[in-house]
């Protein structure tokens, strides 16, 4: 079973009361408060974006856009949801738009060679792993990244949010503005497609 501890990884790295104070200070124009928000959330936001789009540079661009959007819309931030939820929603939607544009670009310029956008240095390797294990893990991760590119943007977003970020399907449906049944279908299709793409790894 996939453990649900992942849920505790990101969503509330600070309690909601402190977060509200910080947001209020940022709204009042305290740039240090906004810097603090950036400091607290940037690692997780970049990681989320990287999992969604698969490239470090694009992930940083998306994360930057998310923070700038937050800065612009701080005055309208009512605090009904946490900043983490706001980031999940914004980054996921930005990533889906990005992936759609990317697919279109690939279709239009199919004759061009594109880098697969994976950098072996991006992947954190388990501590204490031998060089051979490191190599195997890196290769597996690269294949997984390639396989993820075969998914539709929504399938990928649903898969990453459930499998990597550990969000509940109900929450994912709310974030992406979809029906829960549709989210279940996306998840099932994503896993089925990934299984087909990764047959070599799964059945050596």
């Amino acid at each position, binding site marked *: 079973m996939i453990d649900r501890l992942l849920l505790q990884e990101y969503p509330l790295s600070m309690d909601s009361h402190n977060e509200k104070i910080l947001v209020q200070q940022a709204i009042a124009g305290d740039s240090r408060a906004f810097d603090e928000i950036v400091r607290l959330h940037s690692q997780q936001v970049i990681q989320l974006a990287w999992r969604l789009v698969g490239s470090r540079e694009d992930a940083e661009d998306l994360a*930057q856009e998310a923070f700038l959007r937050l800065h612009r819309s701080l005055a309208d931030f009512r605090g009904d949801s946490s900043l983490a939820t706001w980031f999940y929603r914004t980054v996921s939607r930005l990533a889906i738009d990005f992936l759609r544009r990317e697919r279109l670009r690939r279709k239009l310029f199919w004759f061009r060679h594109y880098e697969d956008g994976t950098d072996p240095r991006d*992947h*954190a390797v388990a501590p204490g792993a031998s060089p051979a294990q490191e190599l195997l893990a890196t290769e597996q991760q690269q294949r997984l990244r390639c396989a993820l590119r075969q998914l539709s943007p929504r399938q990928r977003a649903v898969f990453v949010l*459930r499998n990597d970020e550990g969000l509940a399907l109900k929450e994912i449906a709310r974030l992406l503005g979809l029906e829960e049944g549709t989210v279940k*279908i996306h998840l099932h299709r994503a896993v089925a497609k990934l*299984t087909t793409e990764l047959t070599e790894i*799964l059945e050596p």
Partner: protein
Amino acid sequence: MEQQQRPCNFAERELLLSCYDELDSGLQQLLQEHLHGCDPCRRELARLEKTLRVLRPATLNYSAADLQRFSSRLTRHGRRRSFFPRLPVAAASLALVVLAFIAPWQSDVLRTKNSMPPAPVTVELGILEAFDFYQNLEVLELLDLFEELEPVG
């Protein structure tokens, strides 16, 4: 996938949802009871769990220096945006104003151009001289040829 090979009502999607702990409690209970007596479903579930182990989340290797770099990039960009908060809108407005001024003037110019008679065709004298030179050269070559042929008769 092997859904058709399993002679039971549990679809692969439900097994997958069970792996993710997303099946409602009633259905989960039914599935657990079913799994005791259904070997194909147990195998399918094991296969799915193996797949999900391979699909474990990747973690980005992002150092403190990377974070610092990102933070300063964000500050730089934010400052630029706050300095020119509506730069794209301002640029578009300016372009529209310029077009509004240029468009009538441009149409006047076009009208004047259309009303003018066509300009006479002029050829540079140098080109004509060169042309004459090449023609004369041809004649001289022919004369040389005749001179060579003269002794032959």
